[in-house]
Each structure stands twice: as structure tokens, then as C-alpha cells.
């Protein structure tokens, strides 16, 4: 990678640091507003997550006596930065400044890092609530990882079969395929996989009804129990950014292949799609379903969602 001054802009402003934070917090705000309306409340203003973030940043940071300080404070930072980097690797609005670094397998592993950061941070706090929280978080990861890999293999096979007759893990190839053959979702064999991915999004982000790991009403926010101040703000920000990343990833995998010719317009449309997906996949289930039990969550993902993804995988392998 030769150095280009534009890279700093990409990393720090768009589609990196600033834009990702902004988009994430915006999605979180819209999520809260729409949810409130669904529940016949007025709800906070859309800018509320920004205020919350600012407020938490200014609060005192308490490190419990039982916690090793470096791990306790380092975990949220590493988790958040991994998310920023992940955001840079996902094609957004047809713009992929760093596509040569990673592929879809790398992406799902990069997405594991923030979850592991939460787990390690929670574990380091030494709280029994965190103990329960991390065990649940880990079960959640194991639950959604199976359908997720099935979906990605399906997409990789579908795109690779048309391009080279084999398979591909490259996001660029997947974009190229969609540019040639239309959006991935328009191929009917891919629809079960798309639905499966939509169901994975709330699990990966950890919103109700899949928020067993945080479950503030049962285990006091679980892994977050001992966090306060700036580290907690970073975790909240990570949570919001995950909303953006997962919806953007869905867009990249299933809804690409078109362009208006103007990057800014593309970005706005993509952001609108992300907002729509947030409402469909996170706000709606939140408003309409209660939190699942841990064992139900596991069964739901390994039976229903993985089943859907497997149907697609088999269909694609049959050449449909």
C-alpha cells in the first residue's frame, strides 16, 4: 500500500472514525425514537445518544479494586478500534479504500474481536454479574456464528460460481458479481440466506430479544456491571457502531450492484437503507418480543436461522 494523503481522510473522516461514529449513534437514536413511537411514547430526541455519549465521557471512571487496570481499561478501546477498522473494510456507497486487506472470513473474525473485548473486560471486572454475562455472551457468539458462516459460504459460492466457476471470499468479487448480475437478493435462492442474515443482525448487535448477555433487568447489564464513565461510553458507542456495521454488511452482501454515479448520493441512499434495516431487524423485534432464554436463543439460531441458511447453501450448490 503506497501512502496516499487521502488515506488519512478515509481513516479519520469518511468512511472511518467520524462517519462511523456519527452513523452508529444516529441509528441508535432513530432506533430509540421509533421504538418509543411503537410503544405510544414520545421518546427522546434522535440526538439523545450523542448527549448520552458526551455525558458519560465526562463522568468519573471507577476501576474496581479487583480488576487488573490495563485489561479493564484497554478492552473497550481495543474493541472500539477494531470496529472502526472493520467499518473501513466494508464497501460502503461503492467506496472501498482498503479492500485489499481483508475478505469476508476476516470480517467475521474481526467482528468477533469487539465481542471478545466485552467478554475480557467484563471478566476482568471480577463481578459475579459479569461472570453470568460473559457466559451468556459467549453462548450468543457460538449461536449466531454457525448461521453466519453458512450465509457467507452461500454468498461466496454464488458469486464465485458465476465469476470463476469456483468460490470466492473476496468482497470485491461479490460486488463485481452484483454489478454484473444484479443485487444478490434478487436471486430467489438467496432469499432464505438474506432472511437468516437479517435474523443474525440483532443477535450480533445484542438488542432485545437477543440481549441475554446484558439483560439489565436480570443481571444488571451483565458484562457492563462494573463499567462507568469513559470506558462505558466507549462500549455504548461500540454497540451503536455495531448496528451500523451489521446493516452496512448486509447492504454490501445483498443489496449492492447499483450506483447513481455520485458518491455522496450513494452514501445517503446506503445510509437510508441502513436506517430501514435497523428498524426492521432491531426496533421491530424489540418492540414486539420479550427477551429470550439463553437456551432458546441457542436453539433458535442453530435450528431455524441455520436451517434457513442451509436451505440457501444447498440451493446454490444445486446451481440455482
Amino acid at each position, binding site marked *: 500500500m503506497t501512502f496516499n494523503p487521502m488515506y488519512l481522510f478515509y481513516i479519520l473522516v469518511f468512511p472511518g472514525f467520524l462517519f462511523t461514529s456519527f452513523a452508529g449513534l444516529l441509528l441508535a437514536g432513530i432506533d430509540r425514537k421509533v421504538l418509543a413511537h411503537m410503544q405510544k411514547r414520545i421518546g427522546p430526541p434522535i440526538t439523545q445518544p450523542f448527549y448520552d455519549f458526551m455525558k458519560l465521557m465526562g463522568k468519573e471512571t471507577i476501576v474496581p479494586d479487583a480488576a487488573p487496570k490495563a485489561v479493564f481499561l484497554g478492552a473497550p478501546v481495543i474493541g472500539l478500534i477494531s470496529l472502526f477498522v472493520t467499518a473501513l473494510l466494508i464497501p460502503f456507497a461503492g467506496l472501498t479504500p482498503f479492500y485489499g486487506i481483508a475478505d469476508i472470513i476476516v470480517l467475521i473474525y474481526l467482528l*468477533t474481536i469487539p465481542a471478545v473485548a466485552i467478554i475480557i473486560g467484563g*471478566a476482568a471486572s471480577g463481578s459475579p454479574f459479569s461472570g453470568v454475562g460473559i457466559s451468556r455472551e459467549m453462548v450468543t457468539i457460538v449461536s449466531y456464528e454457525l448461521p453466519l458462516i453458512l450465509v457467507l459460504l452461500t454468498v461466496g459460492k454464488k458469486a464465485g460460481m458465476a465469476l470463476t466457476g469456483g468460490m470466492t471470499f473476496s468482497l470485491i468479487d461479490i460486488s463485481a458479481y452484483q454489478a454484473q448480475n444484479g443485487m444478490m437478493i434478487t436471486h430467489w435462492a438467496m432469499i432464505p440466506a438474506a432472511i437468516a442474515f437479517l435474523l443474525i443482525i440483532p443477535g450480533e448487535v445484542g438488542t432485545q430479544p437477543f440481549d441475554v448477555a446484558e439483560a439489565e433487568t436480570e443481571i444488571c447489564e451483565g458484562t457492563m456491571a462494573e463499567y462507568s464513565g469513559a470506558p462505558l461510553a466507549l462500549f455504548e458507542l461500540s454497540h451503536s457502531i455495531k448496528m451500523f456495521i451489521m446493516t452496512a454488511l448486509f447492504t454490501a452482501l445483498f443489496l449492492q450492484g447499483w450506483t447513481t454515479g455520485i458518491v455522496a448520493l450513494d452514501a445517503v441512499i446506503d445510509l437510508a437503507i441502513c436506517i430501514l434495516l435497523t428498524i426492521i431487524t432491531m426496533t421491530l423485534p424489540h418492540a414486539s418480543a420479550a427477551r429470550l432464554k439463553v437456551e432458546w436463543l441457542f436453539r433458535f439460531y442453530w435450528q431455524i436461522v441455520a436451517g434457513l441458511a442451509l436451505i440457501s447453501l444447498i440451493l446454490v450448490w444445486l446451481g440455482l
Partner: protein
Amino acid sequence: MMQHFPVLAVMTLFLASFLVVLFGSRNKVARGVIAMTASTVPLVLMICLIKPVMIDGQIISYWMGNWEPVSGWAIGIGYEIDALSLFFGLIVALTIFLSCFYSLKYMSRDDTLEKYYVLFLMLSGAVLGLVLTGDLFNMFIMIEILTFAAVALTAFRNNEDGPLEAAFKYLVIGSIGSSLTLTGVILLYEQLHTLNMAQIGALLQKTGMNPTTAFAFGLLLTGFSIKAFIVPVHPVAADAYTSAPTSASMAMASMVNKTGVYGIIRLLYIIFMTMGLSSVQNLIVTIGTITMFLGVTMALNQHDFKRLLAFHSISQIGYVITAIGLGTALGLSGGLYHAMNHTLFKGMLFLCAGAVLYAAGTTNLDKLGGLAKKMPQTCIIFLIGAFSISGLPPFNGFVSKWLIYQATYEKAAQSGNFGFAIVTVIEVVVSVMTLASFIKVSQSVFFGELPPELENVKEAPLSMRIPMWIMAVLCIITGVLPGQVYSLLIQPAVNAVLSPVKYINAMMGSGYAEQFISAADAAPDKSVVLAGYWQPINWLILFVVLLAAFTIVALLGKNSRGAQSHSAEVTDGKYATFYSGEKSEYSMVGGSDMFWGLKYNLRHYFGFIGEMHSGVVNDYALWAVLIAAVYLVFSFVCLL
């Protein structure tokens, strides 16, 4: 000069094991000096060989006593070091060095240490000899020596409960493996009248498979599978790694099971050259997949740090076997890369377990906790190891697993076999479960609540931490610079595996192999095409840029409020852990109860595998016979 290096390396180790008894039984310093010298020499010699073998592509052949082949027949014992042998030789030599270094302090609380070093050096010499030799019978001798040294090392702390039982199991299963190997060697000798592996490889191509050679194939494959501890002979490994002194467990997990992997590669790719057959591929991949899945699910069930690591060892070897069973250059690359990584991270994790055992006196996950503040360096090294083995970027486990996923799925796409797609999915799920069980370890050993009896635990001594740090740094290097590591070590080894003709000619004289093998067979596809991208350096640059930006923002935004210093002496409720009421009512989630949601749903499966591992050696012997039967039936049905 160069061609003497391999045999010198092996000789040093065997010679030192006798010198340790002669001079080291009373004198502690002499013992340490002899052991350390003997374990350093092979590493230096192996590193010296990197240039000619890995970079220049030479194959070093060495005839013991200068017994060169007479009119095309090998009569003496030959050492042959191609890139594959050297690759494993480097892994082994590094393990010997680090394990010996670690044991100086770690074993200091035991007595009769000269016996430990005799056995350890015997084991080391045998393993190194096994990967460097070019003679099938010599290989068998080395297997014998290593098995008995490993058995005795397992039983070394025989004043405790487990070791004798574990050693007995290892002895029984190991003997079954050795005798089957010997039978296989005998049958091949009877058919082909030579013991040289290169010549056997060439002659087998001429004669083709007949029932006797097919029988020998099955027997040898069983023998090496038992050395690699694949399912269903794995329970022996779990017991042995748990009971042996940790420095010996580390040596066994890092290099002894690699001998099995090495043997399988030699057998399938060079000696029998059967890897091109899709039936063989299916067999090896199936066995590997079962091994990796069963290993990791058993690990989820464990309550003991070392036993959990042992089952992970089995699981990771499953990855390696699966990858080499694909029969493609990409698969081999992933498999060999993972074998190397496994040596690094699993050795390191065992050393961490040893440090915990040394400091806290137990490895029981239910009794440990909160050690991160007491042993910060061990904790960090453990986390590096845990992230490496779970395949989190940018650590080394990720690179090799990523290669393996690609290789498997590409194989699926090429062959149109949907089974390989399922194998890919299992690989990813196993990887996540690996992460899960290491989260469990980190929670129950290093984080969570510190039990009062561990209040006085101290960090492991420096001479134990140095080997751990060396491995940690190597884990990061091999993770961050995959391209360089690949072209220096992996690529030559893969090419060596895929060039049996070169291997044969180096030993038997040029032109020998071409008499038996047509040129078309001799040049399999060695090209490696990646289906994706992973450039950790660029990723790290991004990470660092963001970290820098982040730090600047954090420094600018830091206000005077909120920055309070807190001394540990003052007890302030604010800094205590939150228990919401009565502390006594709450307890940490025990190590064994960590994944209730997962275990509850899969309770029938977990119950089943729990019952299968009965701990009765009769059952395990039966399984060993069973796998032998499977291989034999397979050889007769598919190879003839």
C-alpha cells in the same frame, strides 16, 4: 560439512542423555549445563540448515557409515533432510530448547532430576531423529524410543494419583501402535526388499498396490495415527498431557504429536503417493473433522486447565489432519502453517498452565480465580495464546485457520463435493467453541474472584517467563508477517511434499525415480491461489493510526474532573465489586458451569461423549483396534 549437521543434532541429544547420568546425578550445575547445551545445539544446527535447504532448495542426504546404495539398492541407514523434514526439525528443535529452558526452574522442586533429563533428552533425540531419518526401520526405532521415554515421563511424578494410570494407558495404546507399525514395516520389506523410504516410494510405483502392500499401508497409517492421537485413540493423550510434568506435557503436545502428522504426510504423499485418490482424501478429512469436533467438545467439558489444553491439542491436530487430507497445495500450506502455530501457541499455553501450577499449586479450574493481578505477565501471555488458538486476527492461529477454510471450501467447489462445504462450516464452529473454552479458562483462572487461599501467589520466576515470552513473540510474528513466514518456511516444505521425484532422486541418485514414475505424475499442481485477502500489516497500520487519533482525542478531551487517584490501602465502597446486597449469597460461575445454554441444548451429545470416555484402558485398546480395522478395510476396498 553441512550434511553432518542433522546426524550431529540427533547424536548430541542421545549422547547428552548418557552424560547427564554420568556427571549430573550429584552435580546440579553439570546437569543443567549438559541439558541446556544439548538442547541448544540442535536448534543452532537446524537454523544453519535453513539457508541451504529452505532457500537454496537442496536436499541433504547422509548415509550412516558411508554405506551408499550398491547397484541401486539402499543397504545402509540413510538420513534425508528435505524442506519438510527440516520444517518439522525446526519445530522440534525449538520445542526441545524452550522446554529444557523452562524445566530448569520448573522441575527444581522434584528430586531424581537426572532421570527426568535422561528421559527428556531421549524423547527429544528420538523425535528429532524420526523427522530427519530417511529409513523406515530407523523411523520405527525412533517411535519406540519416543514412546517409552514419553511413557516414563508421564509417570515421572508417580507419587501423585494420575500419572501411573495415565502412563499405563499410554503404554498399552502406544505399544499397539508400535507393533502395528513394525508389522507394516516388515510387510513392506518382505515385498520390496528395502527399508529406504525413497526407494520404497519408487518401487511401490512400479509394482502398484497388491494385497500385502495395501495391508502394510493400513497398518502404518494406524501406527502414525496413534502417534498423532487422532480420534479414537485420543483419550491417552488427554491423560498423558495432564499427568506429565508440564515441561514434558509441553514437549509432547508441541512435538510428539507432530511426529504422527509428519509420518502421515510422508506416508501418504511420498511413500505410497496415494494422496491423489479422492477416497484417501475423504478418509483423512473425515477422520480429521471428527477429531477436531470431538476434541473441542470434550474440552468444553473439562475442569482441569491442563486436561482442557490436552483436548484442544487433539482438536487442533484435527485441523492439521483435515488440511493435509485435502491433497491440495493450499490445504498443505494451511496444514503445515497450523502445525507450526500449534507448536507455538499450545506449547505456550502449557507453559502458562505450568506457571499457574508452580505458583498456585493446582490446575483445577473450580479452585482458581483472579490471578491476573497476581501474575500479570502470565495472564497477558495466556491471553495471547488464547487469542492465537481461537484464531483471532492478527495472531498466528488466524492465518492458518483462514488458509484452511479457504482450502477446504475451494476443494468443495472444485470437486463439487458438498461434504467439504459441511467440513468448512464445522471448522468455523470448532474455532468458535475453542474461543468459548478459552474464555472459560481466562474467567476461571485469571479473572473473576480471587479465592482467599491464593492471596500469597507470586508471579512465575523469570527463567520460566522467558520461554513463554519467546513463544508469545513468535506467535505474534508468525501472525503479523504471514507472507514472509510462508515464503521462508511453508512454501519450500509444501513444494517438498509435492515433489516425491526429487526426494527419491536425492537419495538414490538422479534419474532413479524416472525409471518408475512418469513425468506427468511427478509434477502435481503446486500453485496456491488465494480466494481472499488478509494483510495483517496494513490492518495493523490502520489500527495504530486509529489508536493514535484516539489517544490524541482522549488527551485533548481530558478534563480535571474524574481523574482521581486511589490508593489501595484506603477501602472505599466505591471501588469494591458490586454484589447488590449480601455478598455471601453470590458466587462466581464455576468453570464447569460456564456455558449452560450451550450444554443444556446439547446435553444428550455431551452425555454421550462423557460416557464414551470411560477411562477404562480396555475400551481405549478396543478403539485402537477399531481404527486399525477401519483403515485396513479401507485399504483393501479402495486401494486395490
